[in-house]
């Protein structure tokens, strides 16, 4: 006979493992666990509750991530989970895991530079090229293909690349 507490702990672990596999629809090499978007999974009265936090207020991927989590849990036999959004504390690129940073770079997206002064009005920032590693790079556009990215160009290998904005 398994105690209720043990049952809930197992259920929680299975739910976390399933939800943690969900990938960002716009950066499919990163899971929502890598990103730090998956904040919490808990079991309340036998029901699984998943808390996620948006990277940006208007990030259109959030709706899709909710659906993907529901599907991932359903595949684990966990029905009717409650997926809700938490705003506080606000998501920051500091939550991106080391593994996530490496995966981003391998995918060709420069990971956010830790400690870059986002409050500086005209900040100087050096972003190494994810392709060739050169630091001779320049900003093309502060806004890129998605809310979370900016567009840069490497002056050594001439390749344009996405930079995951520090936020």
């Amino acid at each position, binding site marked *: 006979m398994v105690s209720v507490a043990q049952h809930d702990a197992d259920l929680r672990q299975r739910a976390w493992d399933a939800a943690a596999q969900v990938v960002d629809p716009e950066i499919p090499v990163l899971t929502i666990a890598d990103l730090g978007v998956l904040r919490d999974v808990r079991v309340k009265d036998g029901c699984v509750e998943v808390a996620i936090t948006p990277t940006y*207020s*208007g990030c259109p991927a959030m709706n899709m991530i909710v659906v993907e989590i529901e599907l991932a849990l359903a595949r684990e036999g966990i029905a009717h989970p409650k997926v809700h959004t938490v*705003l506080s504390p606000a998501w920051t690129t500091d939550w991106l895991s080391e593994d996530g940073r490496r995966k981003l770079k391998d995918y060709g997206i420069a990971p956010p530079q830790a400690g870059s002064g986002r409050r500086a*009005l*005209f900040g100087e920032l050096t972003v190494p090229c994810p392709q060739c590693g050169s630091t001779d790079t320049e900003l093309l*556009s*502060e*806004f890129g293909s998605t809310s979370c990215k900016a567009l840069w160009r490497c002056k050594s290998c001439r390749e344009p690349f996405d930079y995951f904005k520090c936020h």
Partner: protein
Amino acid sequence: MPAASIQVSETPLVLYTLRRADDALILGHRLSEWCGHAPMLEEDMALANMGLDLLGQARELYSYAAKVEGNGNDEDKFAYLRDVRQYRNLLLVERPNGDFAHTMARQFFYAAFADLYWLAMMASRDPTMAAIAARSEKESAYHLRHCSEWMVRLGDGTDESHRRAQNAIDELWAYTGEMFQSDESERGLIDVGIAVDTSALRPRWLQTVSSVLTEATLTLPNNDWMQQGGRFGRHSEHLGHLLSQLQSMQRTFPGATW
């Protein structure tokens, strides 16, 4: 039959939240009007991205207003089913896009304010407002940097870009005063620590604005007369036209969904 407008019971907190939500929605909509028309591809993406951030902020704020009001309204009803006189946004954000310099100057004035405003609101005693503020503050800081760089590029650019940027600053200046005003209903919220007194933010706003404009070789207008009315539903003719576009689908096909 077209959908009728909703009734809103504007308690101080509902009104306060709707005012901020309306600012974000209307400015976000204005930016979305540039989609496919910006002077270059990068800027097309930038304007749409900033618009998306503002739309996200508006959604959070409307949802919260609906929850506080508790009358069965929701984010969509607030956006699609209020008439122009029920909108509470600043006159600044409904100003037409004009040329690119106008759009940038409008965004610059607003972002310089929003950055300080949301930073201060992170200390709000209202946990939902504080959480929305923490999210919005980061976005506003990024918008401000982007717009500041454009102000310098335009002001310190060619004679033509300088002339247009200065025109935009001069024309929009009279709409900046409203950001720092509060009425009786807001003062009650300020007293209990839910809202911030925006008049106290003006010196720092002015400091940011003047330092960027100086670098941009642009001149700060010395005219102190300020236009007002948006917070009370007295709008320019431009907002009605904007809403007729924004609301046409829901007004024509009430309750339509994707």
